[in-house]
């Protein structure tokens, strides 16, 4: 077969140029159409979306929640190392997402409502605007001192390092041999008095009345519900646990979501480990502990709720919170989301979260070969831009999940013994070396004749002569000018009169 050129066929050069132009434009259009949907999938960029209130919101190309740290490779390496040690490697999944057909209707809010009705829990009745709560973070020494005063503690402020980073303000409470410590980052605090396990047992009802009265004093009564209450043998006292309730949606954390297992997200209830308060009351109705793990709300803003489909389009390529996988170990693939509900979740760095914001909690299935898993993922239900604009979160807040806690130096230093207590042991033995008494006791630093807090551990030994069934330990304490009000022998001494060898050890820690 012989092919002839266009010119040989009789086409003019202008026609050929025109044809070429059409081909170039055509190719360009093909590229434009094929590339367009992909970019809108990734970031929902440059698309007008409707809020439930009906006002369109312009989206930006920048997702303020996406963290640029790429640690996927490091995570995989870490997982391999753990497996070699026989430990369970945490799965760091990376999924693609798609919506089940019944969740993919985006024509209007009303049509979505009707489409959602069959399978989406409470979204059907969710309001078009949702409150967002701003939390107080980073408490000053003055604010911490004001809390201490509520407990009649006027001691000067000190500080101590906090578990997990940062520091706690610390106030000695000489009246109760205890202390109050308050996290600088969150304002959560513990009031600690020495446990009283002795005295008359006034019963559960009396202890609960005491607990309620104390809660009212410290702002832990209104809006709280009792989770549990009763005698706790491990502390020899009555322990009451409460949680602050939230309107509209449950407050959840990752543990609560994980506990769903293969269950529906529709039934999720608030976690019992967030916004809780615990009070411990001794059997003779003395307040022993107030553990306040609630956050102080400083502002409430009502913002338009974003449609789930819009939130999904915005964040599905980079969900701000690591997905939670339950079932077989699957770290990739396409998750088909088939359920969605609304929850509250903490926003901001660990320890100093800045807001409670509503999020869509989704549940989806993923299959890899013969393996099946359920994947729970969170998508913000209000515009992050709106949150920044309304001052709920600072403009440089980038992540829901990463700890960017910036601890301040713990100053001023605390002087004296931690916990306002000096530890002593006293023990005495008979001539054959058998121990006749042995006790561990704590005393106030001011009552310590040996100045243990300033000088460190000390030890003294000697002998005492005791009468029949007389306690040589107590006698030895008195012989060394030690206070005996903290001395409580476990069992009464049953021993003949005689000389006993005793040792007294004191340490600050």
């Amino acid at each position, binding site marked *: 077969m012989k092919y002839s050129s266009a010119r040989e066929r009789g086409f003019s050069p202008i026609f050929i140029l025109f044809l070429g132009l059409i081909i170039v434009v055509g190719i360009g259009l093909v590229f434009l159409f094929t590339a367009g949907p992909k970019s809108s999938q990734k970031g929902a960029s440059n698309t007008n979306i409707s809020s439930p209130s009906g006002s369109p919101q312009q989206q930006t190309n920048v997702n303020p929640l996406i963290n640029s740290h790429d640690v996927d490779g490091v995570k995989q390496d870490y997982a391999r190392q753990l497996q070699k040690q026989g430990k369970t490697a945490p799965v760091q999944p990376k999924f693609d997402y798609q919506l089940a057909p019944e969740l993919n209707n985006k024509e209007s809010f009303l049509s979505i409502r009707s489409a959602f009705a069959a399978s989406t829990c409470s979204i059907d009745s969710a309001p078009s605007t949702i409150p967002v709560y701003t939390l107080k973070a980073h408490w000053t020494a003055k604010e911490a001192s004001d809390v201490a005063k509520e407990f009649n503690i006027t001691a000067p402020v000190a500080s101590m390092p906090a578990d997990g980073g940062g520091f706690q303000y610390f106030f000695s409470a000489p009246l109760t041999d205890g202390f109050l410590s308050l996290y600088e980052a969150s304002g959560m605090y513990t009031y600690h008095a020495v446990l009283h396990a002795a005295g008359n047992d006034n019963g559960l009802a009396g202890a609960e009345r005491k607990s309620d009265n104390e809660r009212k004093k410290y702002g832990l009564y209104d809006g709280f519900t009792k989770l549990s209450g009763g005698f706790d043998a491990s502390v020899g006292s009555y322990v009451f646990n409460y949680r602050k309730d939230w309107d509209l949606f449950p407050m959840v954390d990752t543990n609560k979501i994980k506990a769903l297992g293969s269950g529906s997200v529709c039934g999720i209830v608030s976690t019992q480990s967030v916004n809780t308060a615990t009070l411990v009351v001794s059997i003779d109705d003395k307040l022993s502990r107030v553990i306040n793990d609630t956050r102080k709300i400083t502002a409430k803003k009502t913002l338009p709720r974003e449609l789930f489909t819009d939130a999904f389009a915005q964040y599905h390529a980079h969900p701000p919170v690591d997905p939670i996988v339950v079932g077989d170990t699957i770290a990739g693939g396409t998750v088909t989301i088939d359920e969605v509900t609304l929850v509250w979740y903490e926003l901001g760095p660990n320890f100093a979260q800045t807001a409670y914001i509503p999020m869509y909690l989704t549940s989806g299935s993923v299959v890899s070969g013969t393996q099946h898993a359920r994947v729970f993922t969170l998508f913000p239900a209000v515009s992050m831009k709106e949150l920044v604009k309304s001052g709920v979160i600072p403009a440089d807040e980038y992540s829901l999940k990463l*700890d960017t806690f910036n601890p301040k130096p713990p100053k001023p230093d605390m002087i004296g013994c931690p916990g306002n207590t000096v530890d002593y042991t006293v023990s005495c033995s008979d001539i054959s070396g058998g121990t006749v008494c042995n006790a561990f006791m704590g005393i106030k630093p001011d009552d310590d004749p040996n100045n243990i807090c300033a000088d460190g551990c000390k030890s003294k030994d000697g002998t005492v002569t005791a009468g029949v069934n007389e306690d040589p330990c107590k006698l030895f304490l008195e012989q060394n000018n030690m206070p005996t009000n903290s001395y409580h022998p476990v069992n009464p001494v049953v021993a003949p009169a005689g000389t006993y060898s005793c040792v007294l*050890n004191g340490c600050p820690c």
Partner: protein
Amino acid sequence: MLKQIRIPFIITGIAALAIGIVFALQSRTKPPKPTPTTPLTMPASVRSIDHMWGEPAKAMFPDIERPVYVGAKEADLFLRNDDPVMDVVYGQTHYIYPINILSFHHIVNDTIDGKPVAVTFCLLSDSALVFSRQIGDSILDIGVLGPLYYGNLVMYDKKTDSYIIQMTGEIFHGPLSGKTLSVEAEPAIVAWKYAKEGNVKVLSPAKPIAFYRDFYDTRKSSQMGLQSLTQKGGKPDARLDPYIKGIGLTSGGETAFIPVQQVKEKRAVSLVVGSQKVMVSDDTQSGSITVTGGTRLAYTPAYWFSWSAFYPQTKIVE
């Protein structure tokens, strides 16, 4: 002729290549068995009994000599989900030591899988180390001496009355002076709720748990540790805040310190310590810091003031 000479070279090359591949595959499939590690130490002569703060007060904090372990179900009766525990892995078994119990007793003398070990924890310096109790043919019986050394626990061998620094394993006083305990395992500190799954053995309390809770709550401040350093003429290393918590690592004559905050911000940090490539990661699921990678590596959580006092040349991973 030239061709004949080349053939043996080619055969030798192929053989060397094959051996190399076999070795490479073996090293991939069989990770080298971790060997007990001796932490880097300064010469024992540098340590002095004069640096100890306080006098011996033996039996003040009795070590546990015959530990009793229970299963997870029973442990749930005395542990709360958020209680911190020390997780030590031997084979497929996780030995769990509640921190509030350890903060009082400090030391558990045990024999696990035929190995005499001492599980140790110092509340004031936040250091957690598991040592072998064997030195030569001798098995040590380790107790709490009472005083502090640069804010760290001082232990002693009950048989020889030799004094041991917990952070370094150095024996600096007594008949065994100059020797060093070897690190047997590195524990992870996690919340009980993350440790209860699988094959676990949990240290049972020897006293009512309320006693341990009260003790831990009241004394977990570390100010006394810094006080013990400064009162002996020590000065905290000004490169970091004294109370910064971190992970201290030693290997091959080098030491490094990584603030926990750094690890949490970056999620994972790679570094080289003593030619060992190490990765320190934040396990966001359990909230614990994990160290992996080194085969001759010792590490422990620690407060900066205490770690830097023992290892003034330590580098800081920023």
